[in-house]
């Protein structure tokens, strides 16, 4: 029987492949296209966009956002949400820097910071999974908690020691040294971000845990009935998101050399926006890590362009940011409308 059906299959794939492509990748593809469009527009309108330093800074300044976005992609794919990441960054960085100043080994502290992030994630996970608190609320309270603890630790900027060994994470590696600051630069932070993306992609698309994440997003009861480890996986996504928040804290803190209790206010929304722009559905089950990366870059580029324009009246900036975000999702929606009925 299966032999008999080989022949039609040989014909099908290209068509079916395209079909599949349309269904899943479209929003992400749209994101990429629009991103490129923005770059071209920026270059045409303001110039000095397609140049080494602008591009490398786009990555350097948003590496932590990219890391956060990857974490949120996991959570959102399961249909959950994590509002705590911004505050977790504040707490982990403040506590981390204080530990270093207290004489701890810097690299040990890095580990501690990441672990602390994971701990907050674990907290949310437990609340959600074992006390069926709703994700929004569980992570919201974690947000308050982390922010509060951070402020209780210190309300003044905590400085990393000038000679701290972890500052290497922010060292600017000039790949091409252009005139003045027009260099092609990369920092370990960016490399970390790229690694995170790669690993994230691997877990989601090449491991059963990843498949379970998608299945839960599609239909949690079905996933459970299929015997997939729903409980464990749902815990994991929050832990992952927490760990990555901790990592983002490391990257950001080493870049600035200071930690502050008011860092990261509203970053959770940026990260969520990034994932959504990248084509992830907040209802879960659909989306890609790479999309989220593009989303993060789009947001970053958007700020750059607004700055380059410089003529935007102060009152209007939020309107414009909102407007662009809207246009963006509308474009995506239009593309999607073609394949939904």
């Amino acid at each position, binding site marked *: *029987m*299966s032999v*008999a*059906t*080989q022949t*039609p*299959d040989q014909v*099908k*794939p290209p068509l*079916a*492949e395209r*079909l*599949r492509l349309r*269904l899943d990748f479209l929003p992400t593809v749209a994101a990429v296209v629009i991103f490129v469009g923005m770059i071209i527009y920026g270059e045409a309108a303001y110039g000095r966009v397609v140049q080494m330093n602008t591009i490398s800074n786009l990555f350097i300044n948003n590496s932590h956002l990219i890391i956060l976005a990857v974490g949120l992609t996991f959570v959102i794919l399961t249909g959950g949400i994590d509002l705590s990441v911004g505050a977790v960054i504040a707490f982990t960085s403040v506590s981390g820097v204080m530990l270093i100043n207290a004489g701890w080994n810097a690299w040990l502290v890095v580990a501690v910071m990441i672990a602390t992030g994971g701990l907050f994630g674990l907290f949310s996970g437990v609340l959600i999974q074992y006390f069926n608190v709703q994700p929004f609320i569980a992570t919201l309270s974690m947000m308050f908690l982390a922010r509060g603890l951070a402020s209780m630790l210190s309300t003044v900027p905590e400085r990393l020691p000038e000679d701290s060994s972890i500052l290497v994470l922010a060292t600017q590696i000039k790949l091409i040294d252009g005139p003045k600051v027009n260099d092609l630069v990369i920092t370990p932070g960016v490399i970390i971000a790229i690694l995170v993306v790669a690993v994230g992609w*691997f877990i989601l*698309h*090449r*491991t*059963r845990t990843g*498949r*379970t994440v*998608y*299945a839960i*997003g*599609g*239909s949690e*009861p*079905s*996933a*459970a*009935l*299929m*015997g*997939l*480890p729903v409980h464990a996986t749902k815990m994991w996504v929050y832990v992952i998101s927490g760990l990555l928040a901790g990592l983002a804290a490391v990257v950001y803190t080493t870049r600035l050399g200071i930690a502050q209790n008011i860092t990261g206010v509203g970053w959770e929304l940026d990260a969520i926006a990034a994932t959504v722009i990248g084509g992830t559905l907040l209802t879960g*089950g*659909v989306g890609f890590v790479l999309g989220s990366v593009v989303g993060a870059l789009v947001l970053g580029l958007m700020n750059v362009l607004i700055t380059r324009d410089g003529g935007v009246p102060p009152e209007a900036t939020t309107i414009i940011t909102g407007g662009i975000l809207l246009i963006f999702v509308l474009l995506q929606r239009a593309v999607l409308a073609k394949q939904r*009925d």
Partner: protein
Amino acid sequence: MMESLPLVEMQDISISFPGVKALDGVNFRLLPGEVHTLMGENGAGKSTLIKALTGVYKIDEGRILINGQDLHLAGTADAQAAGISTVYQEVNLCTNLSIGENVMLGHEVKSALGINWKASHEKAREALGKLGLGHLNPKAPLKSLSLAMQQLVAISRSMVTNAKVLILDEPTSSLDAVEVEQLFTVIRRLRDEGVAILFVSHFLDQVYAISDRLTVLRNGAFVGEYLTRDLDRTALIAKMIGKDIAALQNLDSGREERADNHGEVVYSAKQISRKGAIEPVDLELRRGEIVGFAGLLGSGRTELARLVYGADKAETGGVTVDGVKAEIKAPASGLKHRIAFSSENRRDEGIIRDLTVRENIILGVQAKRGWHRPLPRKEVDELVAKYIAELNVRPADPDKPIRNLSGGNQQKVLLGRWLATSPEILILDEPTRGIDIGAKAEIQERVLELAAEGVSVVFISSELEEVVRLSDRIVVLKDHRKIAELVNGPEVTAESIVNIIAQDGVEDAKEAAEGVASQPEEVLQ
């Protein structure tokens, strides 16, 4: 067959839900290499027993033994680990994933670099092939399949793992003869390979065709275990419902003899169509007439029905209701024109799980009246009481969340919802799916009464006999086209319809259809 020791043994299993004792000291055993059918009316406890055996529900009392060892199930995963593979009554797949991903979920082929998709899809294709779905592309999205197809995909999941125990809860409820035969060949092969198979179905023919042994439940209680050959149909029915009833006779008797009291045309569609769903068709429905849609799976019956109701918007053609031009572009407008449509997809397009039986019943009427004209409390209670009694929904508790009803009873509640809207045109897509024989007879009776009362009924069922028995006119569809329209008569039988479908050549399809439409008799010479 001689008694080899049982692979699965369930002793004195009891499970009670708030209000219901779903299972009360039930015994059940499953021998290797046998097909063991679980029989019982709607709500007898079949699915619950299965869910107990697969770790979905915790058992209150009793024990489960596998290969003689006590087995404690904390979840479905444990059951799978114990070699039990299950296809539940409601299709449980993830529509956001591809067919292949669904088939392989949890069993993907691993390699050094994580999942090997090529191999996984290959394996998925094999599994599908075993059920004659080899033509499906594993990479295509599951969404693109009809409910029936999805059910087959769900079954093929269990082909991936070589399970020792295979459980199929009403797998055939939405399949037609061809698929059923295909499924049975697979089941037989597995059985001969020594797999123990637990089968549930309300179709007696199928039960007798496939099963070696029967266990009968009634209201959650264990009635008895029998060898199929020792128990003839009437005896079996008697055991299931506790008494013999005559209603079941007309299950086998041919088409109902009824006076042709066809009134004037209430609905007429000219060349309505929708891309990918159904090609342009004309359709006329008369008052007091039952029109059956016949066709194989994926022939487009549901699609056509959806267009009539407005669930999907017709892209071409025009519609008149009661002779007046009508714009039916959404279910709401369908309802306004007194059209009601009971979907084949009970779980996704029918019940609202978390609403009570009462709310589920009145939802249709209420939607028709609009939110600002709420039904008075009194009327609500009357309506609800009326339909719970008429369709004898069990348990007869209007304040139970509908998700807690058995599959069949949910179906009855939905029927109630649509009858409550006092429709002029009633479209029933697989209304008897998952309904036990007793209830099925009742529903068929009800359909005939409705027609007699002047309602124009569209009846869709994968069970051709049913269609032939009830319909005055039969619209035959194939590949999303209408290929024939027969005025029902003594000479029209399930076989003759199958022949029409088989003979329908691609080129002369259209004239055939027209010819048939004009003088239906000729088709059969």
